[in-house]
């Protein structure tokens, strides 16, 4: 993917490292971000995502490596000359200026004439549905309104690249969901490349065209939300994004199956395993890719020879649309299986302590590298 032709690439991060007095916050990152893309940097706190974003904005200097934006090396370009704007996590609205003055500030620095400036401020404020609020001071606005002022202030300069530092973190859940869609719509409308930092995997999955999962200053995996969810590069990514059941076992290359001591029969994968014979591998299966039923209610009498397990229902979480079953295996480990509640009444309701059978298709398991 990084080999896409260079006109398509807006941001090119080449071997960038940031050393904060002996700790590597960012450890040799290579990344290409395409024009017009909504890209997310996803990871837990301290993974280096914010430091990387701040280096793009010009607020930190890389210890080594190079950052190119639109073909231009950013090494000696101070923050105030970069074709980049940032939406700060705290929003950083100027408290002594009105909403309109906040939005106009960036245009004043560009010496945009007053009539055009007023038009663009009005346009930016109406885009975020704050057309009536120009005269208010930031402290007279709600959290969600402040967030939108910050967005308008960053977008009014029509940057090539917009950086968003945890843009939704300060909002409550309901507002966050609503704002997610607004943010995505605005991005499509203005066509500006967005790079967002977030620790919230759901947010990253919902909003991004592509995302990078980071850990300990490095990028673990880059891909579309679908790629990352369905083909996690390793166990850490699989466990960070969504829920995954992990089984360790020995690969048998003769028939492409994996023998796990925890399971009564081998796991057979559709994809061939590229591993040394007899080597230990970890297999991940997502809860929604497993089917659960009461023991003995199978259509055929014989137990399947592969991709099958039995256990007892330990816990049930009824979420309305889904039910999540915690199934305890014979050795005590818990497997999570989810089931969509497609009907209002179940013919065979599952309840606690029921013995259940769980099975899955050969395309469901994925090999997780360590």
């Amino acid at each position, binding site marked *: 993917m990084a080999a896409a032709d260079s006109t398509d690439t807006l941001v090119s991060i080449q071997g960038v490292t940031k050393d904060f007095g002996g700790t590597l916050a960012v450890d040799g990152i290579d990344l290409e971000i395409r024009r017009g893309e909504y890209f997310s940097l996803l990871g837990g706190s301290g993974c280096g995502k914010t430091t990387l974003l701040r280096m793009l904005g010009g607020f930190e200097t890389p210890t080594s490596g190079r950052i190119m934006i639109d073909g231009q090396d950013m090494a000696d370009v101070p923050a*105030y000359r970069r074709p980049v*704007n940032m939406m700060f996590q705290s929003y950083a609205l100027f408290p002594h200026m009105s909403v309109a003055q906040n939005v106009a500030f960036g245009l004043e620095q560009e010496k945009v004439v007053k009539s055009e400036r007023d038009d663009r401020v009005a346009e930016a404020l109406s885009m975020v549905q704050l057309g009536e609020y120009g005269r208010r*001071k930031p402290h007279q606005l709600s959290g969600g309104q402040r967030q939108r002022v910050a967005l308008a202030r960053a977008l009014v300069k029509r940057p090539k690249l917009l950086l968003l530092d945890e843009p939704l973190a300060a909002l409550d859940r309901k507002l966050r969901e609503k704002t997610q869609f607004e943010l995505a719509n605005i991005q499509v409308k203005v066509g500006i490349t967005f790079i967002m930092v977030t620790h919230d995997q759901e947010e990253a999955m919902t909003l991004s065209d592509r995302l990078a999962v980071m850990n300990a200053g490095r990028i673990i995996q880059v891909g579309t939300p679908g790629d990352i969810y369905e083909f996690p590069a390793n166990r850490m990514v699989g466990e960070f994004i969504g829920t995954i059941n992990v089984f360790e076992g020995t690969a048998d290359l003769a028939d492409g199956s994996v023998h796990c001591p925890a399971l009564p029969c081998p796991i057979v994968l559709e994809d061939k395993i590229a591993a040394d014979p007899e080597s230990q591998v970890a297999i991940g299966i997502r809860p929604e890719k497993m089917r659960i039923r009461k023991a003995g209610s199978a259509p055929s009498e014989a137990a399947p020879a592969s991709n099958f397990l039995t256990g007892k229902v330990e816990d049930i979480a009824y979420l309305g649309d889904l039910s999540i079953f915690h199934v305890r295996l014979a050795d005590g480990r818990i497997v999570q299986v989810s089931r969509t509640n497609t009907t209002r009444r179940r013919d065979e309701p599952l309840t606690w302590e029921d013995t259940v059978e769980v099975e899955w298709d050969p395309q469901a398991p994925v090999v997780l590298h360590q």
Partner: protein
Amino acid sequence: MTDTAADRVADSPALSASRGRLIGILIPTAWLLLFFAIPFLFVIKISLSEAAYSVPPVSDFLIWQDGWPVLQATWANFALILDDPLYLQALLGSLRIAAISTLLTLLIGYPMAYAIARAEPGMRTPLLLLVILPFWTSFLIRVYAWSTLLQDQGMINSALMWLGVIDDPMRMLNTEFAVQLGIVYSYLPFMILPLYATLERLDGSLLEAAADLGARPATTFWRVTLPLSLPGVAAGCLLVFIPAAGEFVIPELLGGPDTLMIGKVMWQEFFNNRDWPVASALATILLLLLIVPILLLDRTQSRAEQG
């Protein structure tokens, strides 16, 4: 001002219980009443009396006539002050000298406070300690030391002559320059500390946001840092201006006969002329004049709290 201070105390959640609120208002109010309002009423009383050969050297405020108290108040002291250009000149001179030295203190103190607030966190406390270190020595001694530095044969003149910058000693001691210098030197910490407090609290992401929006460092300073530090500027200016306007020691030790400051005049009235009523009237007028900047500060601060 006292009301808002009391409100702020009462607003803190720990004291939100009504009893805590009451105590929070009562203590500063009682303090002000006991140590400011009541003594000041005495001063006003004296300012409305006549000088007399007695102990204390003022006429009785109330005299008893036929079993009834009769008020013996007179505006004569105020009339005298307003009539005699000497007093008005001293008052205006004090305000002028205090205003100029406050401005100089601000110009010197702001960059220092800014530098301390932007220094590495570990360096800030040592730097602040250096700012208040002069307080370890008596104020009187430090001002007196300046008089030896500034005199014609003092270190500054000898050094300049030795370097060949000047041929004859400059007259510095007993000039208004020396008074300004003394005030700026003595009151600089009172300017730096409130400025530091506001600048240190300033949200760094606001400065980054300004840079992000294309503002050069100088623009960021004028449009963001300075406006947001105005409460500190106002507090620092008041802390310097008010005591400087009534300053007595510095003009006495460093000023000449032509530097008229109200503190010196008050001293003369009080101790040399033993005219307590005129001295009290002067004190009353000075206080009334100084209330104006305090009210202005109160307004800027309440505006700053809103926005």
